[in-house]
């Protein structure tokens, strides 16, 4: 479980609110004490023909007040990860045994639907991608915020309405007293997303899971929403899991970044480190494919091929077919996340090239051995494949 060897990757760009918390984190070095801890998460979907391993052994943690960016192409399993954390994976999907999601020291994967209701909202709230379809069209925005208020803060009637207006003001909606009684379709896209965020805040959560919250919005609105999120984070001391496919957005919001590919996290590092010194060939490819004004007319690079849809337990590197640096062992050994070099415990990559300072052969053996170590667990999970 080398993937969890994360330390306190706090971005110095962050505000002072963060700084106070980093002391706590330092005090509690043990990974188990992190607010949200995802370990070996495997979420599969059973179809008539096969079992899709949408999330296949993902591990990460989020500390209080921290923003973890989860980035990857569409189809890489980001949203399924978010839904798994929220307990929103329904038939025909399921979490395989061995998956663990711990929130505030409490194991969530064992909870019943009823038990989960007490965690959702108040513990972990979620902001979805498409703000229009996220709001129920037949109720006013105020009604839907008040619903959360009554569930999690016991407010009702005038109190709830006043609080709802306050929340709408907090998220920067002008004329909130009037807009609270309007319907979602009367809001513009950006305003809707603000309302959705207000609704999530109404639950008074500790962790906010944002699933592509800016993807459906115009670029200028995107920037406003991102700014709003970081202001709110500072104000409420929120931890945020920020999911996006947009490397540019991640650079702005995240403290730490996890890069997902085909259901696995391939690289994890503090944001500055990742951008300045990407290690996994996939991450490098992703960064090279960001359009940038500085590069002028230079031709953008692309990664050839598509994200595969994994339907059986990995025995090789899933990126190998698209990898410019692949060598023979990549098709035989499944890489596990390891520190990229001696001492860089907060920067891991799941690639046979690492640890960089070890001889290639030793590194490969290390990955292979870790994979074998994993096998009792994965034997349990392969049961899902045969279905």
């Amino acid at each position, binding site marked *: 479980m080398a993937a969890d060897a994360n330390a306190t990757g706090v971005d110095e760009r962050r505000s002072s609110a963060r700084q106070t918390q980093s002391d706590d984190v330092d005090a509690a070095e043990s990974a188990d004490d992190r607010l949200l801890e995802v370990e070996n998460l495997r979420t599969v979907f059973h179809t008539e023909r096969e079992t899709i391993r949408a999330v296949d052994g993902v591990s990460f943690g989020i500390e209080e007040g921290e923003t973890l960016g989860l980035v990857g192409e569409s189809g890489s399993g980001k949203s399924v990860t978010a839904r798994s954390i929220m307990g*929103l994976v329904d038939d025909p999907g399921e979490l395989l045994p061995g998956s663990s999601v711990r929130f505030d020291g409490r194991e969530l994967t064992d909870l019943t639907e*009823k038990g989960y209701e007490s965690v959702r*909202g*108040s513990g972990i*709230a*979620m902001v979805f991608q498409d703000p229009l379809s996220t709001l*129920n*069209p037949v109720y006013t925005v105020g009604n839907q915020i008040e619903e959360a208020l009554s569930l999690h803060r016991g407010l009702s009637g005038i109190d709830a309405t006043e609080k709802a207006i306050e929340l709408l003001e907090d998220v920067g909606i002008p004329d909130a007293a009037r807009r609270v009684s309007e*319907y979602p379709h009367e809001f513009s896209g950006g305003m809707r997303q603000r309302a959705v965020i207000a609704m999530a805040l*109404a639950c008074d959560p500790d962790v906010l899971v944002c699933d592509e919250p800016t993807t459906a919005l115009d670029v200028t609105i995107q920037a406003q929403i991102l700014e709003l999120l970081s202001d709110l984070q500072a104000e409420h001391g929120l931890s945020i899991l920020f999911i996006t496919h947009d490397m540019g957005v991640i650079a702005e919001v995240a403290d730490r970044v996890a890069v997902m590919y085909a259901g696995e996290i391939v690289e994890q590092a503090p944001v500055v480190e990742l951008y300045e010194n990407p290690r996994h060939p996939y991450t490098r490819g992703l960064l090279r494919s960001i359009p940038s004004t500085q590069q002028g007319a230079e031709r953008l690079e692309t990664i050839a091929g598509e994200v595969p849809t994994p339907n059986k337990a990995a025995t090789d590197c899933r990126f190998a077919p698209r990898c410019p640096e692949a060598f023979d062992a990549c098709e035989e050994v499944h890489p596990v996340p390891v520190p990229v070099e001696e001492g860089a415990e907060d920067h891991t990559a799941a690639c046979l090239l690492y640890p960089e300072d070890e001889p290639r052969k030793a590194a490969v053996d290390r990955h292979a051995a870790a994979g074998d170590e994993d096998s009792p667990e994965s034997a349990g999970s392969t049961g899902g494949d045969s279905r």
Partner: protein
Amino acid sequence: MSRWSYFARRVLLMIPIVFFGTTITFLVLRMGPMDPAAAVIAGAGDTEAYESVRQSLGLDQPLWLQYVEYLRDLFTLQLGYSWVVNRGRPVWELIGVYAPRTIWLGFWAVMLPLFIGLPLGFYAGLNPNTLSDYLASFGGIVWRAMPNFWLAVILVSVLTQSDQLFGFDWESWLVQTQIVTPPELQRLWVPSNFLAAFKAILPAALVLGSASMGNEMRIGRTAVLETVNENYVETARAKGVPRRTIISKHVFRNALIPLVPIITGEAFLLLGGSVLVETVFSINGLGYLFYSATINADLPLVGSLMFFFILLSVGINILQDLLYTLIDPRVGYGGEGA
């Protein structure tokens, strides 16, 4: 508010519709190949009688004047008299006698599916791919393919033979009623009268509502299935709303939206279906009155009844728009719900 002005616009639109609907009836009755006066006297009378009928129907006037008077009479709700079926009786009086039975029949034909078909469909939609779901879906499909008149014939036979077939006598069950007869609608507030009237209409209402029942079951199921998968339902779950509240608050109201036109549309279809069902069950209602007026060539009565039906259908349309406006706030916004 924009949705109420949308509603007002819909109501305004009904005026030309009544106007044109009535015009079509006029075209068929007065410009068609059948001479109303000749049809009324059915060839029995002499020319003198024929002329007097023509005169009193205003057929001796130029067509445009006939048209103007026809419209004027109807729009001022002067529906005229019956000439053959019930000679000399005002149409309003006939409607007063015949309509309550049809309304009683139609009321239950709307209510029974609403309270049986719709809950079954919702239940099936909430429990998809279970045995009860398959039963409800299949039942709905077959049920709505059954012709009303045939179902009526079978039901009448089964009920009249219920003693031999099931060992219990439908006619004397609970209260004494007859199967093939119009219901007694006097003093319905007396419980025993109400029960008798309800029992008397029940078979006919079940038949007339059968297609609706199948449809509401099927469409209710799909509507719930689709709504359950909507993002806002997931959002509600993500903010910790209990399942029961999600279903009652977030799912049902949205699932009702596509059902509104189904339910009102069916209320309208009942008018056509009532002819057959009323004939089989010998309920002397409006459908039966229209049918006998038609086959007896009582064209003035037919024309007035048709106008009455047009008003009814337009009324149902307005009711539908009202329901839409109440349930769906998006009505009238960006063309949705039109």
